């Protein structure tokens, strides 16, 4: 099955980003395709390379970057939501790209299921 993922909450503040990541890994392990992961609302904060959690904690941003590198997953950050929150090309972590909301609608059209991770 082709999945699209939408993440609406920021890392560490909310479980949504962790659950979405676990879902993506589990879906890939079962042979499904992740068509795109779209970051919106505070979810855009999953994409900042300035993130530096304590060493004994999971690194949510690096985890996404690694997923993109290993699985060729398309990680897209909403440009408008990003600009509001100070997320721009300069502080974008590897594996992410910035684009418009049309990419979310397109994911909804092309995927068999769009799964929303939010509050």
């Amino acid at each position, binding site marked *: 099955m082709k999945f699209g993922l939408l993440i*609406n909450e920021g890392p560490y503040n909310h479980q949504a980003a962790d659950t979405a990541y676990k879902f993506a890994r589990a879906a890939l392990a079962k042979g499904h395709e992740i068509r795109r992961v779209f970051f919106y609302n505070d979810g855009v904060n999953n994409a900042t390379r300035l993130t530096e959690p304590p060493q004994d904690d999971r690194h949510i941003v690096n985890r996404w970057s690694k997923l993109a590198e290993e699985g060729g997953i398309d990680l897209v950050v909403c440009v408008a939501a990003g600009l509001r929150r100070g997320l721009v090309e300069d502080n974008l972590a590897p594996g992410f790209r910035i684009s418009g*909301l049309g990419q979310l*609608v*397109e994911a*909804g*059209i092309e995927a068999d299921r769009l799964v929303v991770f*939010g509050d």
Partner: protein
Amino acid sequence: MTDTRDEIDAEEGAGVVKKFMFVNRKAPYGTIYALESLEVVLISAAFDQDVSLAFLDDGVYQLVKGQDTKAIEVKNFSPTYRALEGYDVEKLYVERESLAARGLTEDDLLVPVQVVSAAEMAELMEAQDVVIGF
């Protein structure tokens, strides 16, 4: 000729019309969810999709008439709901139970809506291809 055209459409996803429902559950101000939901709604309409909006819980407050946000220095975006018709977004469903629980009626709302029961709302959601909740 027709076959070729169909193949191209299938490949690019062009011409596909899915039923998108945006579910609004939160008050218009206090958090950004309502505003950023509206932004996606406008984009999806530009993609010529079959778009509908659902309002439940505190989300029904998004449609209440006479919003005045001056004191909180936040933009009053409620006029945008009136503009939705111009984007061919005309299916606005409001849950009856959520209105009643807040002492509101259809007359308190700034746009024409269809008031539906929670059970009817569930059926509407069941009929969608994509449900995005904010």
